[in-house]
């Protein structure tokens, strides 16, 4: 198994390098001269050349990439054009806020999906199954940013139960989930975020569980006189590796997908930061945020893969 783990980690390296290449390329596909925004409009040609040289922009692109990669590896992702703050620090601060609601959303989605999926798989074709399937179709079809708006209209505008946007008066510095005054700000974003992963995890649970329940060993368990609940316990453990894999993937997707939801709820996470970067065309900030989020996604995938080898004995120890 260690062998497999080592191999999986080695395989991740070229992918991570590829990710850095794409992130590096973002600056080049962006229209406009990156230098122009840094100089006053009346700068002379020699000023431009001087600045280009000081940024290393006069060197061949592969060399520029290596320099950039070297800086990125030491945690230097440049400075934001808007407020001249180091990009890495800003993104990491925002990332903790995003992770908070993303993890909560995945946990909520997982617990509901598991129950619904089990009920649906136990009696395929029953009304529970049809209800669950209906929910999952809605869940993957609904635009999350619209759902957020609808929830705000309902619970904030009409019912006044929950706050519409933001993270509370104290901001992210002292945010605590255990104090209702602050935790209530997280409820709507988490619910909005949870619906899509809920649908997808439920689909996975339903289909993989239905497949397991159709296998011969389940018949053997029944023949041995095992109760239905005990059989379900056996079956769910057999389906668990696939469900967990989907869970990890969904957590990763939420890191990227949070941009829309955080924009609606003005939740100060990476998505909100990205939106700000897009609106102000702050390319270094955009690049840094994308790089960190993509690397987080790669890392999550790696961890999920490694966990799977622990959970699923069928994955070869070769």
């Amino acid at each position, binding site marked *: 198994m260690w062998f497999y783990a080592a191999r999986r980690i080695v395989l991740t390296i*070229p*992918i*991570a390098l*590829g*990710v850095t*290449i*794409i*992130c590096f390329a*973002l*600056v080049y*596909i*962006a*229209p406009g001269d990156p230098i122009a925004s840094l100089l006053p409009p009346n700068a002379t040609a020699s000023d431009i050349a001087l600045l280009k040289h000081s940024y290393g922009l006069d060197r061949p692109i592969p060399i520029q990439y290596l320099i950039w990669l070297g800086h990125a590896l030491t945690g230097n992702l440049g400075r934001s054009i808007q407020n001249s703050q180091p990009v890495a620090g800003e993104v990491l601060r925002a990332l903790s806020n995003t992770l908070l609601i993303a993890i909560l959303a995945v946990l909520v989605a997982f617990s509901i999906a598991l129950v619904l999926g089990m009920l649906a798989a136990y009696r395929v074709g029953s009304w529970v199954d049809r209800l669950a399937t209906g929910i999952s*179709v*809605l869940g*993957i*079809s*609904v*635009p*999350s*940013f*619209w*759902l957020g*708006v*609808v929830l*705000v*209209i309902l619970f904030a*505008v*009409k019912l006044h139960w929950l706050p519409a946007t933001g993270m509370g008066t104290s901001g992210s510095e002292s945010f605590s989930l255990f104090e209702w005054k602050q935790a209530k700000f997280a409820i709507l974003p988490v619910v909005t975020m949870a619906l899509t992963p809920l649908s997808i995890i439920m689909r996975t649970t339903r289909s993989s569980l239905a497949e397991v329940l159709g296998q011969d060993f389940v018949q053997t368990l029944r023949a041995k006189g095992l109760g239905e609940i005990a059989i379900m316990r056996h079956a769910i453990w057999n389906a668990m590796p696939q469900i967990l894999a989907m869970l990890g993937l969904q957590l*990763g*997707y*939420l*890191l*990227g*997908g949070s*941009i*829309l939801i955080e*924009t*609606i709820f003005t939740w100060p996470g990476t998505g909100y930061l*990205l*939106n700000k*970067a*897009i*609106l102000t*065309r702050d*390319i270094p900030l*955009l690049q840094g945020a*994308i790089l960190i*989020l*993509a690397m987080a*996604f*790669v890392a999550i*995938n790696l961890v999920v893969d490694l966990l799977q080898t622990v959970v699923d004995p069928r994955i070869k120890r070769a």
Partner: protein
Amino acid sequence: MTDMTVGSGFDAGPVPERAPEQRVRGYWQTVWQKLRYDYVTLFFMALIALIILSAVFAPLLAPIDPYKSSMVYRLKPIGYKQFILGTDEQGRDMLSRLLYGGRVSLTMGIVPVVLATSIGGLLGVLAGYLGGRPNTIIMRTMDVFFAFPSVLLAVAISGSLGNGIPNQLLTLTVVMIPPLCRVAETATSQIRGMDFVDAARASGASMPSILFRHVLINAISPVLVYASTLVSACILLASGLSFLGLGVPPPTPDWGLMLSTLRQAIYVQPLVCALPGVAILITSVAFNLVSDGLRQAMDVKG
């Protein structure tokens, strides 16, 4: 030389096997036979046709000019005077804007998937059929794109390129290529290992001939089914980009952009503000259910 001669009892020559009387049906006919009785899928197919037609004929159907704004009629409720679905924050007719908005939104959902199916499908089929080094190069490149969550990749490319229809089309196509390429590659490499492909090679056929006559017609149904599921995802992604201001520039109507500009008005006209989202939701549900139906009719696992 010895020769094989056969003893008594077996000298009747090749025995023609009994042929049960039945009508011969091709694959696509079989698919249609299954779809014919799947009323849910048929209903949503009709709904999609209706949505597409209403977008195509928006100029004929729209009661009022979708660009005509009016300070007097700002944010009127549903059913106010001649405005059947109310007005937006600039007093423009919502119904007309929704009809026109379908043009951009549907284009953004369908065109990138068609482009990505051709490009990604071709790359995947080549990778799956050739195997070896070409496969490694193509599929490892795709793996790099898979290392981004799709929304993040779209935001990264679109955010760098800036807004506008061509940029949005390009972004969505790039995002859709890797998954389609992977599906095509999986389907092709499965078919590649089958005996009938070896039999075709053994008959001395050229690679293009084998690809078209034997590989492609078998790989196409999983790829098409998968592409149909992506249309809904692509519509959602496109409207999300528009919502972020990365799609068509205003004042062109687009469902995602309309949602974004109406967001400020949720305290005034919540129902009207939710309308563009309803349009996106109905379209996306319709495409999802149709692709589910197609998956069952074409008997594709997954």
